[in-house]
């Protein structure tokens, strides 16, 4: 965690040096102004959104879905898993543990591929907390429509890949 933050700030510092070289202090001042005005717009929204995401993470029943999206559930299971993925709350630190619990609980591999793809693409907490406040709802609507079929495609491609490469056994990693 610490090294990610350090890395991001190193990148920020390097970019700042670059901007300073090319545009001088005025460029840095404009960059800072942009960051402050965006930050001010997020100041109230972001904590509220995180609160909402955390409430939802507590309220939704997550362990019971594995049986519905088993390896034999086929296209219907893939579509269901893709939809469920969109409602999986939280960032990777909560979603991957949840996906693993569902996988170990007996869900099929293509269905878990669809679940994770659905979570990556629709993740409503991310839409609420970052995408809508920064990009606006028109962008969200267009992106959601353009991406709607992707998680199902991912699941179908995975199913096809598994069918073609017979003997390829992929299951939950055992620790």
């Amino acid at each position, binding site marked *: *965690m610490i090294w*990610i*933050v350090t*890395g*991001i700030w190193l*990148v*920020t510092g390097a*970019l*700042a040096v670059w*901007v300073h070289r*090319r*545009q001088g202090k005025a*460029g840095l001042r*404009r*960059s800072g*102004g*942009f*960051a402050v005005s*965006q*930050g*001010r717009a997020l100041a*109230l*929204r*972001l904590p*509220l*959104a*995180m*609160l*909402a995401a*955390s*409430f939802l993470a*507590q*309220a939704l029943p997550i362990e019971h879905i594995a049986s519905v999206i088993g390896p034999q559930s086929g296209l219907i299971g893939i579509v269901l898993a893709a939809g469920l993925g969109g409602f999986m709350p939280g960032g*990777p630190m909560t979603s991957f543990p949840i996906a*693993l619990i569902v996988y170990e609980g007996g869900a099929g*591999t293509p269905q878990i*591929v669809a679940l994770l*793809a659905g979570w*990556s*693409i629709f*993740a409503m907490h*991310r839409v609420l907390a*970052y995408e809508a*406040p*920064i*990009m606006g709802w*028109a962008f969200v609507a*267009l*992106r959601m*429509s*353009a*991406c709607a*079929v*992707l998680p199902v*495609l*991912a699941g179908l*491609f995975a199913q096809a*890949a*598994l069918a073609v490469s017979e003997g390829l056994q992929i299951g*939950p990693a055992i620790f």
Partner: protein
Amino acid sequence: MKVSKSDCVFGAIAAASGLLCFWLGGVGAVRAALGHAGGLLILVLPQLAAGLLIGGLVQELVDREKVSRLLGTQSGLVGLSLATAAGMVTPGGPFTSFPLVYALWIAGADAGALIAYVAAWALIGLNRLIVWELPFMGADFTVLRFVVCLPLPLIAGLIARWLVQVTPLKLREVPGE
């Protein structure tokens, strides 16, 4: 501080989900959620601050004409591939990527490129793949998911360009012009 309409929407969503949480899980669940949200905020703030600064700095560095030539409406499949590659290597969470998307939008990237970028970052971002998916899901699963998701950002970009042409779905005008 000015409270905007959008802030009220977020307040209402937080209140409704809080009530749902209390109804289903009682005081304990509400307390756990509050602790989680607080921790998350502390964790995210330093990264978000950096992300916003990166967004501002990138705007100073990129040449508008170049961006609209490389990622604009006329950029074709090459533009979508470039956007996909950029999304794949962008590190960090949504707090760093969306300020960057915003900066590219202002600089002249079109809806297809922006959406290919977001889809690539979300689906096949290498940072998350290495930090999260590999340890949790194992190498076999991670490779399978990466390979089947590789062509999807291009498809999303093409669908987005098509939607902009044939439906009322559009990006609003570039803000701050």
